[in-house]
């Protein structure tokens, strides 16, 4: 518990440093920090009392969205080309009607194969899959604010929230909910542009291809950033920044040298641009 509090304070200090540098008035005084610490501690206790599931189950579900979205794209593509008509539909209706006989539905190819097919798909198909992933993320982001607001989070005073505070909320609370860690670094130009740096982006840490496929590997892993892109847009939308006014793009960045070696060689940066 203590360690989490310290991590939290580190990040708060980092973000406060950004504010101080740009002359935005923010409370950094000792008394307010203690008050903040107490509130964070209370929040931590409250969060720990909520019902939980295993992170493994969550990560598997989240990551499986990528092969799933590719499989859906394939099925829809097949249906569009299926000149014979609704033969497929008839079969699935019959399956539903047979009493006492439970045939397992047809299965998709294995996840790794679907990931490969996504990599090899043409641009149009590929983008449709990414859109699907962003939609899923958007819906998550849209609702996650409700979740966190109602959990009595002392960080949240939505009436007063300026864009920077919303981004900090994403970096701290949303990231912690999803990945049990916070964004490592937040940069802003104070004119609506933000960069969120996560050097150990959880969902992809153990992904790897072979020894010599670095560029291909990065390309194959890129779709796994898109749900989070959607989440960011969803959070911003729920606080009043319509998706047409928000651009969010994910890309790879080099990990800083001070960071201990990790199994995935690159960090991730989310570039967010909000037009007011």
């Amino acid at each position: 518990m203590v360690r989490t509090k310290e991590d939290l304070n580190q990040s708060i200090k980092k973000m406060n440093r950004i504010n101080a540098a740009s002359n935005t008035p923010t409370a950094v005084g000792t008394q307010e920090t203690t008050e903040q610490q107490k509130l964070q501690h209370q929040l931590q206790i409250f969060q720990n009392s909520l019902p939980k599931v295993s992170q493994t189950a969550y990560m598997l579900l989240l990551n499986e969205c990528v092969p799933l979205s590719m499989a859906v794209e394939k099925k829809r593509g097949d249906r569009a080309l299926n000149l014979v008509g609704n033969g497929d539909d008839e079969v699935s209706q019959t399956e539903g009607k047979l009493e006492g006989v439970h045939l397992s539905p047809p299965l998709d190819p294995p996840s790794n194969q679907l990931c490969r097919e996504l990599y090899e798909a043409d641009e149009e198909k590929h983008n449709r899959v990414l859109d699907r992933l962003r939609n899923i993320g958007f819906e998550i982001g849209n609702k996650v604010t409700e979740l966190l607001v109602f959990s009595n989070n002392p960080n949240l005073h939505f009436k007063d929230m300026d864009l920077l505070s919303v981004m900090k909320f994403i970096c701290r609370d949303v990231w912690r909910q999803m990945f049990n860690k916070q964004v490592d670094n937040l940069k802003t130009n104070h004119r609506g542009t933000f960069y969120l740096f996560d050097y150990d982006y959880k969902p992809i840490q153990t992904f790897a291809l072979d020894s010599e496929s670095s560029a291909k590997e990065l390309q194959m892993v890129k779709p796994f950033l898109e749900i989070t892109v959607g989440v960011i847009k969803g959070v911003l939308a729920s606080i009043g920044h319509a998706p047409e006014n928000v651009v969010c793009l994910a890309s790879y960045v080099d990990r800083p040298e001070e960071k201990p070696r990790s199994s995935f060689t690159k960090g991730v940066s989310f570039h967010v641009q909000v037009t007011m």
Partner: protein
Amino acid sequence: MAIYSFWIFDKHCNCIFDREWTLISNSASGTMNSKQTEETAKLLYGMIYSLRSVTKKLSRDDSTNEVRSISIGKYRIHTYCTASGLWFVLLSDYKQSSYAHVLRYIHSHIYVKYVTHNILSPYDFAENENETRGRGFRKISNRNFISALESFLGPMIAQ
């Protein structure tokens, strides 16, 4: 105490990973997933398979009776078999009687982490019927798995 080689077999009777060390003094020596070790892999598989069959027949209803190690002259063959049909096999000299904890660690912290939870890697290395029953050839080749295994076993090959 020395480790000579490490093997992983899957439920399709295929060797999906092998690493043989040739110089005890040099943990970078030897072969990995090479064609040279194919024959040895098949012999090793056959021996373990036969002994497991015999053990099952001898133990009547108690089916948690598993082969753990086989001692042959100057070698010991250590096996850890999972319910999912994976065999983790280590060949060592005579000195250490059990490597169960080592093999279990490899399963849970290296295989599961870098193969099972790696969505770019297959979970089943036989891509079709023709690669089952010992006829498969695909190997674990992802760099995280390999480097984690080397870091873990390398220091142990000569103790």
